[in-house]
């Protein structure tokens, strides 16, 4: 097995505050790694280090098994990052997409390469190549920005929330283009997204981050505060529709985040009569994704403003007979919630 990145005891700090502490992370060459976690958990910092935009304060970083000491444009030309806030250059679409090729002094077949990259992101080159940056919608701008990276056929494609704040059609096309990048030229992909289901369905591996650390190499539900004290040593999170999540133990503070493994949530069609579980919440199934080569299913359930994901077996699915839109009861114990 060959790794494109190997990180050991990598830390980063700004103004004396440590924002990233990664004890170990290995990213397989040609794989898609998904990274999830709340805002400010260190995801973007990790991406900047992987994209060689900043040097870690300490630790060991290997790229293609070679220790990285100095960061420069030669390294950045192998690992390109699509930023969360797309900033197209103030030029035409063609000039935006061709910029990286020209920076690399590539002169052959520029038009063909640019057109091919635009087609990968679903933009008609005849229609779009001559447009200026201000003549594009948000989704089109993001697709042009992605095309500007795809045209480079980078060894590593790093994406920071590529589908946030854009229309559904653009998001679908971008998701497809990212998978194509691996299939067509074997790019290793690192993907940060709040869309846990998409991350999980697209990525070979998903890691969760919290407070600058990798908390889990599995998908996690994050339940945000405010938490209120209950009567019996528990804490309660009141949901918008009046339902309550009960958690055991003491959170660090009112707004601490509770972590809940999807495997700890049982789905049922009715309220269980004799369960010891403290939490029984009614919700609506919004999405179902296969994982582990179809052996298990991730079921996303919306409970008003809260989204929880449950992992169930194929057998449970056929027994329950649920589909997106079904009403289900989520059952989990109060001590299944761990504090971040």
């Amino acid at each position, binding site marked *: 097995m060959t790794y494109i990145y190997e990180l050991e005891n990598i830390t980063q700090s700004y103004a004396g505050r440590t924002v990233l502490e990664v004890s170990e992370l290995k990213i397989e060459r040609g794989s898609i790694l998904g990274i999830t976690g709340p805002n400010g958990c260190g995801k973007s910092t990790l991406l900047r280090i992987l*994209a060689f*935009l900043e040097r870690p304060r300490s630790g060991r970083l290997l790229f293609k098994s070679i220790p990285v000491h100095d960061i420069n*444009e030669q390294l*950045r*030309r192998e690992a*390109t*990052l*699509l*930023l969360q*806030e797309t*900033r*197209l*250059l*103030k030029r035409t679409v063609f000039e935006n997409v061709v*910029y*990286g090729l020209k*920076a*690399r002094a590539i002169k052959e077949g520029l038009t063909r390469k640019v057109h091919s990259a635009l087609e990968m992101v679903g933009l008609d080159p005849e229609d779009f190549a001559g447009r200026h*940056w*201000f003549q594009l919608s948000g989704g089109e701008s993001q697709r042009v*920005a992605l095309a*500007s*990276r795809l045209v*480079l056929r980078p060894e590593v494609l790093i994406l920071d929330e590529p589908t946030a704040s854009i229309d559904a059609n653009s998001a679908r096309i971008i998701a497809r283009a990212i998978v194509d990048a691996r299939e067509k030229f074997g790019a290793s992909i690192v993907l940060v997204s709040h869309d846990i289901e998409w991350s999980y369905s697209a990525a070979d591996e998903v890691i969760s981050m919290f407070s600058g650390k990798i908390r889990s190499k599995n998908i996690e539900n994050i339940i945000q505060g405010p938490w209120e004290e209950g009567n019996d040593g528990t804490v309660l999170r009141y949901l918008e529709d009046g339902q309550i999540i009960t958690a055991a133990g003491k959170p660090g503070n009112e707004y601490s985040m509770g972590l809940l493994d999807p495997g700890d949530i049982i789905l049922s069609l009715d309220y269980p009569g004799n369960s010891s579980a403290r939490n029984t919440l009614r919700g609506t199934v919004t999405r179902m994704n296969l994982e582990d080569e179809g052996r298990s299913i991730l079921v996303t359930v919306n409970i008003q403003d809260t989204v929880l994901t449950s992992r169930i077996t194929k057998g449970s699915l056929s027994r329950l007979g649920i589909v997106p839109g079904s009403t289900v009861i989520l059952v989990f114990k109060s001590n299944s919630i761990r504090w971040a």
Partner: protein
Amino acid sequence: MHYLSDGFKAAFTILLSGQEETFNAIFTTLKVSTFSILLTLAAGIPLGFILGYYSFPGKHACRAISDTLMAIPTVVVGLLIYAFISRSGPFGGLGLLFTLRGVAIGQFFLGLPVVVSLTASATEQMEDSTRLTLMTLGASPGQLAASSLWEGRYAVVAAAMTAYSRIISEVGVSMMIGGNIKWRTRTITTAIALETGKGQFAEGIALGIVLLSIAFIVNGAVSVARKRAAS
């Protein structure tokens, strides 16, 4: 108020009849201001970019000096340049006094702080995401600097137009260095001052209309450039 309305009527007559003396002042103004602004931009844009883009000891002092000089009175520039190029000055031998070349040098020093400060501001205000975008696309340090300047081109154009407005409308340098010599160094502004002093409002208003028209065109261009810079 009759003299004002009569002045406007006579001004249009002068402009439409193509009075040679008036048009000579207009062409002289355009010639010297164009030369001055080109000189100012050639020096001011690189200096402003260096000031805004790079960090170096004394950067803040340079910026403070440049910002202060943006408001320097034109007569003070005229006075200083006069002191240097007059017969008894260190560059007296170059024969620049009462020539358009001398006026251009004065206007260069008048416009330079404007271009330097505004280009530096435009470069400083360039969003961090633009710089990061260029880096993620593999730009080398040289390409990063050149592309950053190009990305800020609309703001730089706005700086150039602002400097041109200051140059074309100044009177102090043109009067003190050029000497307001008929057919040679008389510009629109010095001619207006002279004609008004003589009570010849019509000529003054005619030249004022031309100057205002140029100012409108330049400000229109600045407005378009600023909009593009902000988009």
